[in-house]
């Protein structure tokens, strides 16, 4: 605190709080530019729209693309949720949630069903999303062909000509080397039979959920791209007739809530190789436990405790 500040100065300062920032941090012209990119992205599902990504008060790799998209989409009436690999309580998720609490004054929640805008890093929530919800992805490398072809000039031409043979070669080489398609996350998809798209590094378990009722927006800050999937857009994971796509997960139930249908994290719990499989979606797991579901590794319920 500035020592020259009187108590009333400080009260006034704290009252102002979010008014020290423009609503949702970004200036209006930047938001308009991002909003125009979002609309073009929705009009051309799966196509990466270039945008003039701004410096944000967090380093690249911490969700600057997702944050800019959220800032352009949020209204004062929204309820905002942030997850990082399914969890609401990691550093990245907590800091982004607080960022918009402070700069946009929006309500926040950890409950998937209560949120109107959800920003996510590397997961799709287990609960099915509704038409009135928006899912914003943080994307590190938006170009699905980038690791196969480093040149932007070339990959743009490949999208232009719908020349995606290289991606199929990559999946084929997976099969030749490993006997199966070994790509486990950021599994490429084809959108409405036209654009091959990187769904961001979500596990391929989540790929079938990409066809959903909610609006999906993808923001890549460092790479300066925005892309989008309107509700019910056709999204097909690339595969071969004899090696069909398979959404895989660890073959265990959740140790805490017993769910058999959710994506699991594997935790090493002792020095003897003991391990625990638990839901990656913390809200899903907590809600199930609150409803009385118990997994094999859940803490015992003590007598007399509710």
């Amino acid at each position, binding site marked *: 605190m500035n020592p020259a500040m009187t108590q009333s100065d400080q009260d006034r300062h704290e009252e102002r709080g979010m008014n020290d920032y423009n*609503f949702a941090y970004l200036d209006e012209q930047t938001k308009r530019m991002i909003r125009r990119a979002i609309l073009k992205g929705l009009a*051309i599902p799966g196509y990466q729209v270039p945008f003039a990504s701004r410096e944000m008060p967090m380093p690249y790799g911490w969700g600057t693309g997702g944050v800019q998209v959220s800032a352009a989409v949020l209204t004062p009436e929204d309820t905002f949720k942030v997850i990082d690999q399914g969890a609401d309580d990691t550093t990245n998720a907590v800091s982004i949630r607080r960022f918009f609490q402070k700069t946009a004054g929006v309500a926040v929640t950890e409950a998937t069903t209560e949120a109107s805008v959800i920003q996510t890093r590397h997961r799709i929530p287990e609960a099915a999303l509704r038409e009135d919800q928006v899912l914003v992805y943080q994307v590190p490398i938006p170009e699905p062909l980038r690791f196969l072809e480093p040149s932007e000039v070339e990959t743009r031409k490949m999208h232009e000509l719908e020349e995606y043979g290289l991606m199929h070669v990559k999946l084929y080489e997976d099969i030749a080397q490993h006997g199966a398609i070994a790509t486990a996350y950021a599994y490429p998809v084809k959108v409405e039979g036209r654009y091959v798209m990187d769904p961001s590094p979500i596990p391929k378990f989540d790929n079938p959920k990409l066809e959903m*009722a909610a609006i999906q927006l993808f923001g890549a800050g460092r790479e300066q791209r925005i892309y989008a999937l309107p509700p019910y857009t056709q999204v097909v994971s690339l595969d071969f007739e004899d090696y069909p796509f398979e959404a895989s997960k660890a073959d265990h139930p959740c140790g805490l809530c017993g769910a058999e249908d959710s994506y699991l994290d594997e935790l090493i719990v002792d020095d003897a190789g003991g391990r625990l499989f638990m839901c990656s979606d913390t809200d899903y797991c907590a809600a199930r436990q609150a409803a009385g579901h118990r997994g094999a590794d859940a803490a015992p319920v003590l007598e007399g405790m509710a």
Partner: protein
Amino acid sequence: MQTLSLTGGFRDAPKDAAFAFRAVMNAMAKPGEINRVTGAEPPAGLSIAAGVVLLTLCDPETPLYLAPGFDRPEVRDWITFHTGAPFAPANAAHFALGAWDDLPRGDFPLGTAAYPDRSATLIVEVDDLRSDGATLSGPGIKDSAALSLPDRMAFQQNAALFPRGLDFIFTCGDRLAALPRSTKVS
């Protein structure tokens, strides 16, 4: 410039624009869905919805084409004061405003095969906006949707250009709906 052109903008631009964009985004993501907007009081002859879309999306970076029916001093002054958007011929426009029959639809940028996003968005003022008429299907639509469109053939031809093509926002009073190039019209 008359003083009238200085009024009728957003009262609280960041918040009004946020609500307005959400409505426009919902419309573009769910073709055929009609959304209500508020916050703009544009000059007579211009709908509230068209005014809101201009205030929400246009600025000095977006050349705007005005169809002859809207190319009047009070409209120009209002748009210039509130958005700063430069006026441009159709072939250089990012946005266009006009009645359906008044827009030179063949002249607007359609985007390129490499950059299909570099295409115009047409704000079309219509007298009537209802959820019936042409049948819509495609991204954003669960099974099918319906929307009163001023034409069908033109939108079928536009959709055939995909991924290039124009995107449309229809405005009527305080309501708007959108039709992106991805929508199939029948």
